[in-house]
């Protein structure tokens, strides 16, 4: 048995029955990394020693019995999540030597559950990007085709899971950064409702949009991870002050009687690849066969979402990233003549071009005289997008759509044209703007054999609906067993 191929739920069964140990499982994941990581580049930092120590501790807990489902499970986390004593770079040179003295809440919840963190995943610098090409360290390659990007910004997480380097991962999603790489890598990626999962220790990109969520091999695994990380955190004022449900319960649900909305603005979007449109048609058919009624709906403000997103997110980023100034931690440029020069040289050399571009965009959007026209107007658009969804969810249980207009594109293909890159976020940014949950679940392959995901979105705090639909679809579509050749 190739232990690294296991899903979390399969491994948890074997671990709880003591048929395998966490040490064996962890070693299997680590040797898998040794074997395929050079081809993929999904990690920035590996924590072999810490992982084995955690695995041994998990084995002790498992021996006692009654351990949590994640106990002893080797997994990775995106390098945007602070890990105590373990380098956390955010894919940036400016934090290349930053060792946080604290764990992100989600990380401490994983540790409390006995999970084994094997490494920190590569990502677009400060989560800004859709291809993981913006990492200051190295790009990540798509396990299905090494010439292609894995998606981003959680490209390292999705590629690691797709390549069986760790059983699952945590990513973060500000405009699609979990769902889009999950779609491109043929795995499951869930962006929870804003406020469902604590953001404490998640290095902020755009505070009003960021959410942490699972990237897994199965829908069941996503539910298991959600059980571990969701719920109120007193350290995050924007986390929902209510306890989270048992998300695995939702996996029992059925689709009959459910109404699923199919937004015409998404299906009519410019640049939607024929392969993707075809797979969508198939998905609709599958869901209808499962008993759901799929109806056309309208989200009329969809066309403004990308523009609103690329004002709000950079505006917040320009402020969130101001702290990286060389004064307190991280990279500092040498021998400045004065304070202004220290700031300028540190930030010019420490940040990559995409981060600098977004800081400039955001600074401009917030400037006196421009605020109303840009940030103010974008906030109004955001309200309209929320209302679009509210109207649709009055009559639909969920909305289904593609995750990305195309399958994974070639490395370097869109680097020269940021605007085209931004436009590929069209189906994912609305959920972030509205604060609703969304999931990407594999729905098939393009003619070139590249994975394509189906997106399901539900109303605020209705992750259970997503999981019910995704789980039923996953079983019926029968595409999630396929593995890339590495």
């Amino acid at each position, binding site marked *: 048995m190739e232990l690294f191929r296991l899903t979390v739920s399969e491994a948890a069964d074997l671990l709880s029955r003591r048929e395998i140990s966490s040490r064996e499982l962890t070693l299997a994941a680590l040797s898998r990394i040794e074997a395929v990581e050079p081809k993929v580049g999904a990690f920035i930092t590996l924590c072999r020693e810490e992982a084995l120590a955690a695995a041994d501790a998990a084995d002790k807990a498992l021996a006692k019995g009654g351990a949590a489902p994640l106990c002893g499970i080797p997994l990775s986390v995106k390098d945007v999540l602070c890990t105590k004593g373990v380098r956390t770079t955010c894919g940036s040179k400016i934090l290349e030597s930053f060792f946080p003295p604290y764990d992100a809440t989600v990380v401490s919840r994983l540790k409390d559950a006995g999970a084994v963190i094997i490494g920190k995943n590569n990502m677009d610098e400060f989560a800004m990007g859709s291809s993981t090409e913006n990492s200051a360290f190295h790009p990540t390659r798509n396990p299905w085709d090494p010439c292609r990007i894995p998606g981003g910004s959680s490209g390292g997480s999705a590629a690691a899971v797709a390549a069986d380097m760790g059983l699952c991962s945590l990513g973060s999603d500000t405009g699609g950064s979990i769902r889009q790489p999950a779609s491109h890598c043929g795995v499951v990626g869930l962006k929870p409702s804003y406020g469902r999962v604590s953001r404490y220790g998640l290095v902020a990109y755009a505070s009003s949009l960021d959410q942490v969520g699972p990237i897994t091999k199965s829908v069941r695994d996503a539910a298991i991870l959600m059980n571990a990380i969701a719920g109120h955190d007193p*350290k995050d004022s*924007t986390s929902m002050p209510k306890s989270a449900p048992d998300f695995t319960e939702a996996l029992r649900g059925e689709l009959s009687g459910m109404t699923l909305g199919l937004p015409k603005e998404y299906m009519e979007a410019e640049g939607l690849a024929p392969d993707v449109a075809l797979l969508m048609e198939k998905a609709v058919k599958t869901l209808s066969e499962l008993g759901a009624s799929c109806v056309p709906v309208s989200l009329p403000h969809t066309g403004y979402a990308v523009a609103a997103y690329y004002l709000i997110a950079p505006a917040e980023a320009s402020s969130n990233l101001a702290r990286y100034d060389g004064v307190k931690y991280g990279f500092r440029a040498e021998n400045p003549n004065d304070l202004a020069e220290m700031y300028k040289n540190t930030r010019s050399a420490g940040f990559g071009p995409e981060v600098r571009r977004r800081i400039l965009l955001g600074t401009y959007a917030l400037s006196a005289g421009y605020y109303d026209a840009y940030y103010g107007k974008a906030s109004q658009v955001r309200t309209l997008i929320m209302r679009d969804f509210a109207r649709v969810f009055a009559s639909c249980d969920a909305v289904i759509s593609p995750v990305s207009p195309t399958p994974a594109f070639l490395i370097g293909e869109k680097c020269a044209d940021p605007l085209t890159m931004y436009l590929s976020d069209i189906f994912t940014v609305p959920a972030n703007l509205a604060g609703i949950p969304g999931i990407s679940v594999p729905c098939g392959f393009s003619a070139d054999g590249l994975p394509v995901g189906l997106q399901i979105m539900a109303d605020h705090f209705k992750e259970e609906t997503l999981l019910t639909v995704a789980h039923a679809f996953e079983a019926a579509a029968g595409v999630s067993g396929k593995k890339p050749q590495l």
Partner: protein
Amino acid sequence: MEFEAVIGLEVHAQLKTRSKIFCGCSTAFGAPPNTHVCPVCLGMPGVLPVLNKKAVDFAIMTSIATNCTVARESRFARKNYFYPDLPKNFQISMYELPLSEHGWLEIETAAGKKRVGITRIHMEEDAGKLVHDEFAPVSRVDLNRTGTPLMEIVSEPDMRTPEEAGAYLRKLHAILRYLDVCDGNMEEGSFRCDANVSIRPRGQEAFGTRAELKNMNSFKNVEKALAFEIARQTAVIEDGGRVVQETRLWDANAMKTLPMRGKEEAHDYRYFPEPDLLPLVVFPQWEEELKARLPELPDARKARFTSQYGLSDYDAGVLTSERELADFFEAVMASCKGEPKQAANWVTGALMGLLNARGLSISESPVSALALAALLTLLDSGVISGKIAKTVFEEMAETGKAPDVIVKEKGLVQVSDASVIEKAVEEVLAENPAEVTGYRGGKTKLMGFFVGAVMKKTRGKANPGLVNELLKKRLDA
């Protein structure tokens, strides 16, 4: 042409909470650098602010006490600017939607009573401080103060004289001290004031160009700086010049304001709503609960002092100007039977004279309220005379001994035994025959001389009333 000044004040008051506004670190002053810090107030990656409820309580209490309307919903906002003492390079403050607005305070000056409007009160976090090395070209950053809760109280431009500005500040200071929400220490910076001042020809509606004055660390300095600035602006205009809009620092040694050095940059703070904090919603019940818990405020206490103790407006005003002073007076009254007027005179006279001379605050008084009450009881019951009481008070201040102990040790009990005093009277008359003849010849002003001589002979202990009576009887006989 006759000019009048237009003055508005911005006060930054540090809220007296034990922990910081967005994390659990201590707000205590004077700790070694960078010891009262954590990832949150250091602005490390990924950390989030959590609002201190006590700080909001305090700011709401202040809003109620200054007649402001508390907003049902207010919002924190980010004020973005780069400076090494600001770890996140933005300050969490309030901007478009402050905590409260539209309040007022009543002040009293020689010109009478007047209302000064309060534009708004908002909450924000303090920055840290830079320590510049005297010997090397380095600056160090101490972030202990970072995240200390502040309240900014902005007045309307309603004041016309430095005296009014001083009265407003003293009143506001007294209210914050009464509420116990700010320790009011201007030296340590827990109560800081900036002033905006301009002048205009009397009768003109439009404001002149204003200067912003900073660096005034006492009420007196605010008044002096304003007086200087008004005179300076008047001279500029009378010389045909124009006042420049600028920030000026008060130099207390040179007794003048000087333009702040370095180029004046027009900051664009790029305010936007703080996405890491929810809107602050103050339910009426929360406000009502705080209102019910408010202590008696200076104006109400002053009114009560005049009605309950029959004190003059002036005495009541002085005694209630500081909460501790009023508490002291009431503690004295609670344990002595004497006249309130007499107690008030002792507190505002002897006691405050002593404190001023030694540079002490009322809470540091070497004579406790109980001790002063004991002294006043001795005086009231005739055990000692007023003159002796002054001596005993000085001794109390020196040694800290109880008044009855001092009276006993020094044998200062007032002599009211007529036979003892009669003896002294006889001796004095016998020793001063010329004065006796003079008195009886019509120089009745010599009575003072005889009283003094008898008091001297009895070492001041003789009951002065009795001395007068017995002398009169012997001399007029």
